[in-house]
């Protein structure tokens, strides 16, 4: 089958979702009101609350939610064949992610731009808020551990990318200084910065760097993971304008460049999808599609992380309430299109079915490596780029996304530790350095605990990450649903996704629990149990809160 068909069907479906379904949700269910005074106007302070142009807001909402996760998930999930991943990404974006993201914006805007965490405490209850904190901590922990492992793999797989990936940090540092000290305007800086990055990408393959197989008894993969965490720890302690902000900006540009290049190459080269529609011959040990597909692809179909971004920063800058549709729903569509690109790269970027099967030899294989190799083949075929440069380009893109997420993730984890330090009056824990070290130690424990001394098995926790992420989404959907019930509006459009998510999440956790038990992997079994307890608490909390909401009289607003 031609990849163009897949591309058009996917993008067409999501576009229709935006044009029709999101309009219905915005007008009939959320009843977005252009005259409602948004918090950005009500509390305008030039810092947190600033009415912002909706295209700008969409730009940074989209680029903060789209990172490496919507690439990793689909690139693992195509092991069941392209159709299940494709259908879940497209329908998930239309009926789940779009509603969830714009709903989170709406809920926050209607509650003085409070974050989902605070809203859970207010709308649902204090207990729910505590669960919320724990779930967030678990999500951050897993995403940091997994991304450390993933970047290490990428760097080993493509030694030519080592120079541009680390060089990008130097470029970002220079850009940060130039802009912060107002030495040169943003336009020129962007052009020079992007040119510098791409020349590094071009030079990279000529100066490949590989770590020796053994450094002080550690494998190359383990050494990279340690190096990456050392870097992320330092990066997360620096002021944001120095490194995180310029790198985020470069990533945003890269995201648009990467998407345009990939989609352009598919349209020109018209590669064939070699992976089976539904893989009946999955490698032994692959878990069942139902329910694991729905937690393997979290970002790209629905992800609780979006709710954090939507309610944390975007809602404080929404110029008009009606912009929630464009910023939230279309932001989700943007991420869906990235997930779609990942599916196409991981299924149509191989010469034959045998080549594809050689990559997908077990569950968790493929992932970013398949995206990079497949995507590079498509870029080379469609745009005539040199294969090694194309591979380096995509590796740098993926590694930068993952690296920025690690930086942000560690920073947030540190804040949580510092907050705990204050709550439990542990003065030492409130300081940045000890809190950062604790965050790094917990991530490393997970990366190595799950995968042995070389950290290679870190991807085993990917579905667990998806599960926790879905729990977070579940809590956000719960808040939106309760708000809808209290206003006497149809709740099925958020309640349906909520029930579906909780059922799939619980099933997936139970199935994984059994598989970890069979493998006698006590570490992961323990982790699974922790998430399972959180999931059960969330479910009970949902049941109790909904029961109460349905029995209360409807408010007039």
């Amino acid at each position, binding site marked *: 089958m031609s990849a163009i068909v897949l591309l058009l069907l996917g993008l067409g479906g999501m576009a229709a979702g935006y044009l029709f379904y999101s309009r219905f949700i915005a007008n009939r269910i959320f009843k977005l009101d252009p005259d409602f005074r948004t918090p950005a106007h009500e509390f305008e302070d030039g810092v*947190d609350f*600033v009415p912002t142009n909706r295209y700008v807001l969409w730009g940074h909402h989209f680029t903060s939610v789209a990172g490496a996760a919507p690439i990793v998930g689909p690139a693992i999930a195509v092991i069941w064949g392209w159709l299940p991943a494709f259908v879940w990404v497209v329908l998930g974006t239309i009926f789940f992610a779009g509603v969830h993201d714009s709903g989170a914006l709406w809920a926050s805007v209607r509650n003085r731009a409070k974050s989902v965490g605070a809203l859970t405490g207010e709308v649902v209850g204090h207990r729910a808020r505590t669960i919320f904190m724990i779930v967030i901590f678990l999500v951050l922990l897993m995403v940091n551990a997994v991304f450390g492992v993933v970047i290490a793999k990428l760097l080993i797989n493509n030694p030519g990318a080592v120079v541009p990936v680390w060089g990008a940090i130097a470029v970002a540092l220079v850009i940060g200084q130039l802009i912060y000290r107002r030495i040169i305007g943003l*336009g020129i800086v962007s052009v020079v910065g992007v040119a510098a990055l791409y020349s590094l990408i071009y030079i990279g393959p000529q100066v490949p760097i590989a770590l020796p197989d053994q450094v002080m008894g550690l494998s190359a993969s383990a050494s990279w993971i340690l190096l990456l965490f050392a870097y992320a720890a330092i990066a997360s302690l620096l002021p944001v304008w120095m490194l995180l*902000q310029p790198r985020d*900006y470069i990533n945003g540009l890269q995201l648009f460049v990467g998407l345009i290049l990939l989609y352009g190459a598919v349209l020109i080269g018209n590669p064939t999808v070699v992976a089976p529609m539904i893989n009946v011959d999955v490698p032994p040990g692959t878990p069942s599609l139902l329910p694991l597909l729905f937690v393997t692809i979290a970002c790209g179909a629905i992800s609780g992380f979006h709710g954090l971004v939507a309610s944390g920063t975007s809602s404080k800058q929404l110029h008009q309430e009606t912009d929630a549709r464009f910023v939230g729903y279309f932001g989700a569509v943007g991420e869906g299109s990235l997930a779609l690109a990942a599916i196409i790269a991981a299924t149509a970027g191989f010469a034959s079915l045998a080549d594809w099967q050689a990559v997908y030899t077990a569950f968790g294989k493929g992932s970013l490596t398949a995206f990079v190799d497949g995507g590079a083949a498509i870029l080379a075929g469609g745009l005539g780029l040199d294969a090694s440069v194309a591979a380096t380009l995509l590796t740098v893109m993926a590694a930068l996304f993952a690296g920025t997420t690690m930086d942000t993730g560690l920073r947030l984890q540190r804040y949580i530790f510092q907050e705990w330090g204050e709550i439990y009056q542990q003065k030492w824990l409130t300081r940045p350095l000890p809190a950062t070290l604790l965050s790094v130690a917990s991530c490393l424990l997970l990366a190595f605990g799950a995968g042995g001394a070389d950290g290679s098995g870190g991807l085993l926790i990917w579905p667990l990450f998806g599960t926790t992420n879905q729990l977070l989404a579940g809590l956000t959907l719960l808040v939106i649903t309760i708000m809808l019930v209290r206003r006497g509006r149809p709740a099925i459009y958020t309640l349906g996704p909520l029930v579906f998510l909780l059922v799939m999440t619980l099933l997936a956790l139970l199935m994984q629990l059994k598989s970890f038990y069979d493998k006698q992997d006590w570490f992961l079994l323990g982790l699974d149990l922790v998430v399972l307890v959180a999931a059960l608490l969330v479910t009970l909390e949902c049941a109790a809160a909904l029961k109460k909401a349905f029995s209360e009289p409807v408010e007039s607003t």
Partner: protein
Amino acid sequence: MANRILGALRRLNELGTQYYNAPYRAAIARAKRDEEDLFMLLVFSEMMGIPNPAAWSTLELQPLLMDRFHEWHTRMGMERSPLDHFRCC
């Protein structure tokens, strides 16, 4: 025509700058405020009994910082000026 292109580029630069700054506005404002707090402490340290070798130079700054002094002491959790001879409210 050239004017229109220039105008469009300027608008693009404006939007880009907004895009660059929007997500980090709060974090940077907080960092700047911390710097400001330290600066104020240095300038007014002598008055609070903290020896300051640069007092000779910082003394000159005090009248200029009158407005910011009020903001600073309220931010530090003191409703009224903490200094008897330096009243601002």
